[in-house]
């Protein structure tokens, strides 16, 4: 079974995230980047599926796919050092400014160049926080959508998941090829070992431009995006609140506050 994991490099959680004033996109160059945390779970799940299948004599490869500026190679390296077999990096200046519509198109085209039975993604990226890409990719590829998985079971020709819901979970089954997105309860991602880090340096990395993937420039970047940020501003700073030390009457002081704010 061949598995592609889509990973995204995002600004470090602790970095101050910014939009660039000139074109109103996320500033990815001026900040430290990390692999989107949820995508680590996606990589881990792909590796576990491959390992389980190869223990039964099955074959297949795990390929990492990312779309992003040159710097995203750092994230590719991390996925390779965790154990992925090879990587594809879609990188072209014309992709800058792509929104969900354009990104899903570009990734679907790149996926067209890689043999795959499963595509695994994180449920959401920490910068965009849209959690739409997995569903959009399934739509574009005509593949089964198995999203918000907290458990994945690969059968013969089918995949079954437990889909996390508000009240519990749904058991959902669909034929391969399928697009799977995972929630963070699914596993515990491994740390790259020293051996893994060394091995990653020798693993194949293919770089794709728009032309390589057959992507039409009109459909990506600012031109191909369906949305536009027209304006933004830092949220006005919150007025410092009132902080009271409990002297045995903290509960009733808090009740006073709630009453004054008409919550009780």
């Amino acid at each position, binding site marked *: 079974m061949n598995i592609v994991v889509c990973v995204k490099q995002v600004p470090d*959680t*602790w970095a101050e*995230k910014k*939009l660039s004033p000139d074109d109103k996109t996320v500033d990815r160059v001026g900040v430290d980047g990390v692999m989107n*945390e*949820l995508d680590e779970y996606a990589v881990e799940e792909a590796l576990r599926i491959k390992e389980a299948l190869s223990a039964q004599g099955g074959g297949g490869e795990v390929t990492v796919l990312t779309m992003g500026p040159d710097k995203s190679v750092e994230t590719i390296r991390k996925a390779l050092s965790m154990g992925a077999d090879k990587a594809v990096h879609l990188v072209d200046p014309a992709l800058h400014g792509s929104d*969900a*519509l354009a990104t899903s198109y570009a990734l679907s085209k790149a996926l067209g160049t890689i043999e795959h039975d499963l595509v695994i993604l994180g449920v959401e990226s*920490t910068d965009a*926080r*849209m*959690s*739409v890409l*997995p*569903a*959009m990719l399934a*739509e574009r590829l005509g593949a*089964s*959508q198995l*999203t918000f998985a*907290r458990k994945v079971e690969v059968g013969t020709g089918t995949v079954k998941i437990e*889909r996390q*819901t*508000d*009240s*519990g*979970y*749904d*058991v*959902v*089954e*669909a034929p391969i090829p399928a697009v799977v997105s995972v929630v*963070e309860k699914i596993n515990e991602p491994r740390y790259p070992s020293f051996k893994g880090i060394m091995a990653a340096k020798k693993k194949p990395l293919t770089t794709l431009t728009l032309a390589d993937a057959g992507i039409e420039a009109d459909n990506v970047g600012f031109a191909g*995006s*369906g*949305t*536009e*940020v*027209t*304006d*933004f*501003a*830092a*949220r006005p700073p*919150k007025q410092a*609140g*009132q*902080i*009271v*030390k*409990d002297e045995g009457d*903290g*509960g*009733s*002081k*808090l*009740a006073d506050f709630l*009453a004054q704010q008409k*919550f*009780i």
Partner: protein
Amino acid sequence: MAEVLVLVEHVDGAPKKVTYELLTLARSLGEPSAVFIGNGFDNAKDKLAEYGAAKIYVAGDGDLDGYLVAPKAEVLAQIVASASPAAVLIPSSPEGKEIAGRLAVKTDSGVITDAVGITDGFVAQQSIFGGAINVQAKVGKGTPIITVRPNSTPPEPAPGQPTEEQVSVSLSDAATKAKILDRVTEKKGGRPELTEAAIVVSGGRGLGAGENFSLIEKLADTLGAAVGASRAATDAGWYPHTNQVGQTGKTVSPQLYMAVGISGAIQHRAGMQTSKTIVAINKDPEAPIFELVDFGIVGDLFNVVPQLTEEIEKRKA
């Protein structure tokens, strides 16, 4: 006036509050049409009329509920093609966002998620990076598809007599691939849903043990609130993951958020920072949660919470 589609989010026909919020919002932008997909329309009909739907599209064919997400996007795409609405508004739930994404691909339209408001010309307001930046965004291609967060607009009734249109759907093979075999409920009922609640009381590692969540539940119940939890608490198995607030849990935006024994890590803040009023109880005066609060108590939650619960009960009596 321009037609604005509102996807009804419902449980066995009973619409969720967010549906009324979206109908109210749609009324400020055009003429709202509700789109009801699935079983149980009889439970929804009167409520949709009460909240001002001018028209209701009903797609109630038996097996629409048996498949994941895709059929709903197909039904909406069909209505978008025939009605050419000015916009489509969808609740910003996990499923709502996925429906919006697929609909965007089908109609080659821009999609905006997690709007907290929409103004003239379908300009959406979003709050990004954990509430640090307010953004205005617009759809420039196709039909604006916008998902809107619960609690963004106070729902206001505007009773009317909507026309009804039955939508017959023939689902494509692609839409019926992912079959739902079983639905498992893990959560005990009774309390309001986290993302919809006007008040949320959340507990964290400071509670020390799962059984101490009863303190949080008692406090929540005196306020009619939903119960939330930090990741530390759900990871420890003290409370279900479905109640987790934060970056990898739910995003909530209630009138009042109470953080009890929660430090206020950046990932937790990402899920609650836009709450209107924030209150915290924490014994550590340096806890980062205090940077966000309107009112904070530095003290032991095991003393403060029972006293608070008792005080609220007294004042309500």
